[in-house]
């Protein structure tokens, strides 16, 4: 494109245009250069640096005594890490499933020519504008057993109602799910609503003519055509789940004990407060692996889809 344009230009005043041709060719690269340099160093370089550290015996300060995969062995022998990883599995699975369920349901409901749809949509989505720290603070208060929901239900006459999940090591991970679903399900709703609005109207008319009722139309025709939205939603939600750090910090601070730790919290604690940089780096690399395991198939299918277009 550049060549074509400038060859046309050069017909006018060759000498002057030759100069601007080289300059015009140079400026875009110059403009991008800072981003390119910083990306190479601060993303890929640092990634490699962390990978290197994960194979050393670094403790309080980075050291470069290589110990092979010893830190990874230690990591998977570490009970706290296993708890964090198990929690991520439970938290991630429930968070994604419930968000998808609620999001799809609310989107379909809102798509029925609802009066004041805009206002209702705004209410579903506002938690997404809030920081996870605020969300955690709010739910910590709501879920606390002495003054929170439990007391409200008891005062309302449900004498035997107990809700102590926040202080119960076996249940505390579900508190994370509740708060995270509250925050992110509206987002899934917005994604699907946008998808529903884009569904080809003729498809639906045809189904109606065939006598399909509204439920069948959704189940058989509309939802299957939203497969790409499903994929996007799952990728984004799993990304949120893997990166979750602030919610745990604010809602449970990992407790009771370390029963509600997630990998991100494990990584932070070991790298910055427990002087276990090698171990912390190894846990960061495992997190990266989790993200890539989800991202690469997604990008692959996206790119293949683009080629088909």
């Amino acid at each position, binding site marked *: 494109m550049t060549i074509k344009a400038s060859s046309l230009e050069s017909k006018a005043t060759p000498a002057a245009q030759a100069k601007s041709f080289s300059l015009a060719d140079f400026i875009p690269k110059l403009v991008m250069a800072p981003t390119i340099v910083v990306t190479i160093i601060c993303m890929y370089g640092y990634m490699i640096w962390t990978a290197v550290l994960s194979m050393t015996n670094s403790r309080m300060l980075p050291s470069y005594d290589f110990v092979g995969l010893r830190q990874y062995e230690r990591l998977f022998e570490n009970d706290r890490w296993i708890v964090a990883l198990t929690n991520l599995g439970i938290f991630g699975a429930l968070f994604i499933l419930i968000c998808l369920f609620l999001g799809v349901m609310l989107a379909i409901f809102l798509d029925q020519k609802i009066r004041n749809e805009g206002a209702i949509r705004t209410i579903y989505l506002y938690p997404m504008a809030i920081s996870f720290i605020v969300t955690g603070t*709010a739910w910590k208060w709501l879920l606390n057993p002495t003054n929170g929901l439990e007391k409200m239900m008891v005062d309302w006459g449900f004498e035997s109602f107990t809700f102590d999940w926040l202080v119960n090591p076996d249940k505390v991970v579900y508190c994370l799910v509740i708060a995270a679903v509250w925050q992110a399900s509206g987002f899934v709703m917005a994604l699907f609503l946008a998808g529903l609005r884009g569904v080809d109207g003729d498809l639906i008319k045809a189904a109606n003519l065939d006598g399909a009722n509204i439920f069948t139309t959704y189940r058989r025709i509309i939802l299957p055509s939203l497969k790409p939205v499903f994929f996007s939603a799952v990728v984004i939600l799993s990304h949120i789940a893997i990166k979750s750090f602030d919610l745990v910090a604010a809602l449970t601070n990992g407790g009771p004990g370390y029963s509600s730790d997630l990998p991100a919290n494990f990584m932070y604690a070991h790298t910055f407060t427990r002087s276990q*940089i090698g171990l912390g780096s190894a846990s960061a690399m495992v997190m990266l692996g989790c993200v890539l395991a989800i991202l690469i198939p997604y990008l692959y299918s996206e790119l293949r889809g683009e080629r088909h277009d």
Partner: protein
Amino acid sequence: MTSANTMNSSSSRRQKTPLEHILRVALYICLLGMAAVYLMPFLVMFLTSLKDVEEIRSGTLLSLPGSLNFDAWGKAWGGACTGSSCNGIAPYFMNSFQIVIPAVLISTIIGALNGYVISMWKFKGSDIFFGALLIGCFIPFQVILLPMARTLGWLGIANTTTGLVFVHVVYGVAFTTLFFRNFYQGIPSDLIKAARLDGAGFFTIFRRIILPISTPIIVVTIIWQFTQIWNDFLFGVAFSGFDTQPVTVALNNLVNTSFGGKEYNVDMAAAILAALPTLLVYVLAGKYFVRGLTAGAVKG
């Protein structure tokens, strides 16, 4: 729109059956019930912030305060203890603005220029680089945390507002570039070709043609970046000093500070204050906020 229209036009033309009426009512109950569930935490926060400690102990989450008492708000703003100091969250609120404003502006400008290059001034490797940058939107920041902490130390900007601005710009540019690139991709290239034939250069075209039509994407990007950076906790807690903490970190310290009795009213007031700027943006410019959210998901 189409799906709702076609479905309802076919059903409203004929008389609604009683079953359809019941379903319709159930639908509204369901939607409004869910709206109540989504609103409840915020309502509880607000009610709690207006109560005094005694009312909190004796009442329930949803019981109304005896009077409109904004004492807790005053304390949260100017007197509550966050870790070592007791100046409320006001100073940290200001810190957040000092971090957010430059970081948003710089990352938006860089993103606009990058997007402009990637969509209209492609050079060898620019597409590959864009792909590499995109992956940056997804990496868990845990893999860059420690090296970045060391780098900030070397640069002499560890624990400073400048350091946090730098970090937010570095890791925000991937998203801002994506936004602008997708937007500019939709502009007909003939427009640019014509301008080049007229002898307009890189910056002239950007200023005269591209910038004037970029308002919507600039708004989307600014709102996205503002929300992301204001709500950030990870970088804030890892890279800030005692007096440069952003408000999210201060709020977390305030809530987890445990000298004396727990003052839930102050906690809640502080939480609302910390959430107010982004909530305000959402209420005023929700359309652009949603567009930013879905822009990352629905590829352009």
